[in-house]
């Protein structure tokens, strides 16, 4: 079923089913556990308890203890055994409880999983999907808020995926699990239970009011490597992913800016065609991410746009990012690239 057919089918069957991001992810995992006996979920607290964010709730009871199970608190071990399981022929889906905890597993990801196909000339592969909640805005302090995506986009052999809606989360996760190479699947935890406009002092907008919370039953995929056109516009191109898609969209709407907003969804491989097409049309580009600024993925995006769209650009590219500090606890909204930072960048770009 194509994406459009799936959406249409969901809309035509009376009241469409609406899920939040966690429920959509749970749905994708449930479907893949049922479809493919080689799919295995493992991670800290994901079994009986169903995960600290409930992403695997009910899945152990439904699919059994040797398909969905808890692990020791060892990210090195979790990723390491997942490499071995992949070599056996399984399709492991490890959960790293917070992206901030992933670092002990980096050697197994960077030196092993990412390079196994290459170094063995295809004899062995690492078809794993590492799920991990990432990003801040939940008062998580400096160890429960980070956005380390650029560490992974820098690694040859890793695919990095970040959904921003329940519909995409399900379809992208199914694609990631079916992919025969390691995928880092970062879930923006600020928008697990509702969308976010960047105004932390306003009530959370529940997903059920959002058009992309309609999540069809059953199997469907959203392709990796393809951006999503959030909104077409003429004034400028906004490149964003995860939580920042929603914040940027809200700020543009508030300011009445006719922005063209691309949700990148996959950072590597990047949908460069969609970016080039949009920047060629608008002539202006703003890159937004929550991660720290220096050597962030925004630097890569900015360089690519400069290299490939220079003669279309009417103004310098604007980068809106988090600051180059650890994620502070009490001052997290001062860190977060919210409406003021985005708004000023918009003003600057549009005044050129």
């Amino acid at each position: 079923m194509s994406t459009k057919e799936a959406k249409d089918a969901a809309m035509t069957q009376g009241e469409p089913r609406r899920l939040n991001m966690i429920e959509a992810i749970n749905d994708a995992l449930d479907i893949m556990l049922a479809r493919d006996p080689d799919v295995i979920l493992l991670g800290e607290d994901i079994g009986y308890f169903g995960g600290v964010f409930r992403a695997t709730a009910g899945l152990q009871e439904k699919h059994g203890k040797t398909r969905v199970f808890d692990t020791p608190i060892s990210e090195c071990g979790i990723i390491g055994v997942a490499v071995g399981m992949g070599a056996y022929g399984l399709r492991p889906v490890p959960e790293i409880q917070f992206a901030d905890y992933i670092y002990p597993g980096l050697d197994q990801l960077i030196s092993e999983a990412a390079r196994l196909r290459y170094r063995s000339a295809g004899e062995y592969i690492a078809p794993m999907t590492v799920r991990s909640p990432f990003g801040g805005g939940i008062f998580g302090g400096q160890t429960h808020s980070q956005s380390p995506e650029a560490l992974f986009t820098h690694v040859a052999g890793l695919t990095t995926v970040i959904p921003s809606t329940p519909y995409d989360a399900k379809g992208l996760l199914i694609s990631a699990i079916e992919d025969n190479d390691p995928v880092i699947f970062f879930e923006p935890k600020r928008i697990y239970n509702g969308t976010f406009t960047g105004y932390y002092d306003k009530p959370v907008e529940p997903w059920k009011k959002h058009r992309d919370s309609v999540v069809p039953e059953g199997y469907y995929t959203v392709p990796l490597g393809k951006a999503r056109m959030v909104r077409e516009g003429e004034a400028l191109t906004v490149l964003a992913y995860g939580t920042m898609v929603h914040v940027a969209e809200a700020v543009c709407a508030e300011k009445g800016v006719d922005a063209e907003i691309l949700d990148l969804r996959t950072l590597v491989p990047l949908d460069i065609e969609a970016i080039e097409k949009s920047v060629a049309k608008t002539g202006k580009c703003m890159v937004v991410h929550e991660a720290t600024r220096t050597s962030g993925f925004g630097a890569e995006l900015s360089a690519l746009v400069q290299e490939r769209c220079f003669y279309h650009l009417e103004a310098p590219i604007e980068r809106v990012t988090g600051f180059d500090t650890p994620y502070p606890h009490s001052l997290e909204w001062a860190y977060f690239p919210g409406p003021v930072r985005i708004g000023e960048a918009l003003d600057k770009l549009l005044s050129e």
Partner: protein
Amino acid sequence: MADTPETGSAQGSNKPVLSLHVPEPKYRPGDTADFSYLAITEAGAQARPDEACHASETAALTQDLIRVLGDDNIAHGPWDPKLDPETLRQMLRHFAMVRAFDARMYRGQRQGKTSFYMKCTGEEATSISAAMALASDDMVFPSYRQQGILIMRGYPLVEMINQIYSNRGDKLKGRQLPIMYSSREHSFFSISGNLATQNPQAVGWAMASAIKGDSRIAATWVGEGSTAEGDFHSACTFAAVYNAPVIINVVNNQWAISSFSGFAGAERTTFAARALGYGIAGLRVDGNDPLAVYAAERWAANRARANCGPTLIEHFTYRAEGHSTSDDPSAYRSAHEEEEWPLGDPVNRLKKHLIALGEWDEDRQAAMDVECAENVKAATKEAEKNGILGHGLHHPFHTMFEDVFETLPWHLEEQAAQAIHEREVKWPEGRPK
């Protein structure tokens, strides 16, 4: 400064003065080595517990040394695997082949045919005898000095040499440092080069085998120096937690490049003893005693196959050569050590055992050594037809970009085009012959 507590000196206080212990090996270049401090117990004196025993029942065996072949060259005690003479001769032949292979590849590196080589001299039993105790389809996750497993499992020498030369015949397409082999067909996992990463991978493979109700087990090898890596401890924890059908072989060859085993904790306890803290069975075996290595590995394999859990085996041995072609051991250790090593040479010990059994003699040994050297020479000549490192007979440029992902993304397509363009700029008339 009044608010700052005084640091750095215990002078004037009655507290004991702390001192840092930095381990130092007993012998350095020029020293006369004396290993009489090592407690080498008598062959045959070690009890052999039931393979299904509780891990704690192996406690004594983690401090002792399982030995079968005595100074009389005869097998002794309950660990005698009672192998028939034909199997022993096969083992000896694998030993001889590895030794001949190492000798030739080492020379090849010195002659500039490749960048790097690692011999396993003195450690042949820890891979060959161990692998012979496994089923041929049990999965092995080796470190970098287990070429004996590939030779024992019948991987063609010419394929090994193609890999060492990174030539156009190299199945790994010239991507890996020499000796980082991979052969799925021989249930031999791709060697990493990063240390101890293979340990949790082996545990994961074993867990997968158990999840699927398979009967195959996994075995992995790690040097004693690399047991300091977190991966080793993750592997032991996961193996214990899930009772994984896996064998973790620690090859204690006393030296990690120039760092002696004390830098991995050998001054405090044995490597086998670590097993007990995890609740894993632990065996410490004379790694230069081929029969003891075989028996210990078989004990652990039977235990794993019967769902009785993992085993950690310390193979107590000695690295008779340098770490690799890139270091000179005479710069950091006494050359006298190898001569004095009290557990002898595994090849010699097996040979003498077969002779003592009346199943072998020196003439046959000499003939076999010559035959192995000839086999290796022939394979080398065959491999050299595919080129040696740096002489142009490599895989095509485009292969550099393949297998990063299953399919080539746009950015790698662009970079591949750039690489091919650079080649055309460099050699407009085509590459000179």
